[in-house]
């Protein structure tokens, strides 16, 4: 066990624990805040795994943008402050499927890698990743920009208030 292993263990425990709290808590807003903890722990895992740029992108986009959007949605849907009792469906099939998927995958991966070690590669700095993105993956990159534009326009179209309202409702 090296220091990096201990860091990975601690951050992994934080990530899984915060993830569990996200899916079990009865407070909507707290679920969003636990999600911040979970995503930040995953960003820490990326840092230990030498994926620098991915870690900062994770902090910027997930913690900065996605969680804020989700919290906005919590507030715009007038979620109650405090605990609410109607957030969940009956639980045991979900626990069966989720636990089965998680533990099954974990057993598979443990069996594949055992207690082996690897040397860490060169760090994925912005310079290196930029060279690779614009050297080998230009087409997917450009396609993604089109996808983002399409998603943006789709979100705007969906959010226009008059869609779905009948003329009488619009007058109200």
């Amino acid at each position, binding site marked *: 066990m*090296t220091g990096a292993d201990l860091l*990975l*263990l601690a951050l*992994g425990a934080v990530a*899984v624990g915060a*993830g*569990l709290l*996200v*899916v079990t808590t009865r407070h909507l807003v707290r*679920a969003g805040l636990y*999600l911040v903890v*979970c995503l930040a722990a*995953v960003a820490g*895992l*990326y840092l230990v*795994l030498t*994926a620098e740029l*991915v870690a900062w*992108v*994770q902090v910027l*986009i997930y913690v900065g*943008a*996605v969680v804020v959007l*989700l919290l*906005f*949605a*919590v507030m715009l*849907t007038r979620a109650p402050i405090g605990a609410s009792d109607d*957030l*969940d*469906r009956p639980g045991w099939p*979900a626990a069966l499927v*989720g636990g*089965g998927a*998680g533990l099954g*995958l974990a057993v598979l*991966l*443990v069996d*594949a*890698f055992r*207690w*082996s*070690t*690897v040397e*860490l590669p060169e760090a*994925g700095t912005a310079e*290196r*990743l930029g060279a*690779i993105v614009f050297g080998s993956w230009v087409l997917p990159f450009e396609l993604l920009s089109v*996808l983002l534009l399409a*998603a943006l326009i*789709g*979100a705007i179209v969906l*959010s226009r*208030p008059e*869609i*779905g309202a*009948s003329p*009488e*409702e619009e007058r109200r």
Partner: protein
Amino acid sequence: MIRPVIPYVTAALLFGVGVYGVLRRRNAVLLLMSVELMLNAVNLLLVTSDTTVRAVLPQTGQVFTLFVIVIAAAEVGVGLAIVLHLYRLRASVALDGVPLTDAPPLDGATDATPAGPLGERVGR
């Protein structure tokens, strides 16, 4: 030097937690949060395999992780637009109350335009 089994198992457990949340939660916003957990598990798996496996193109896993993050941002934008639309139509975001086939019972809405899966009228 690291032991790759630790982040791999973390990713697997996070994915399981996400699956549990998707199946368990009936609030649409919480469901989106669970989907984010699953996406993060996959990202963690990609980054870990990138450090574990020496590929022909180095750092491909990290590039893919960046792509997945972008796709997740797009997904959350559209998903939240749909959720807010649902809330405007039905005043609730409970997922098991959504009829998948007919229009929602809007009082006063009697026009015969076809309704999409979430009740939005298409073709207008």
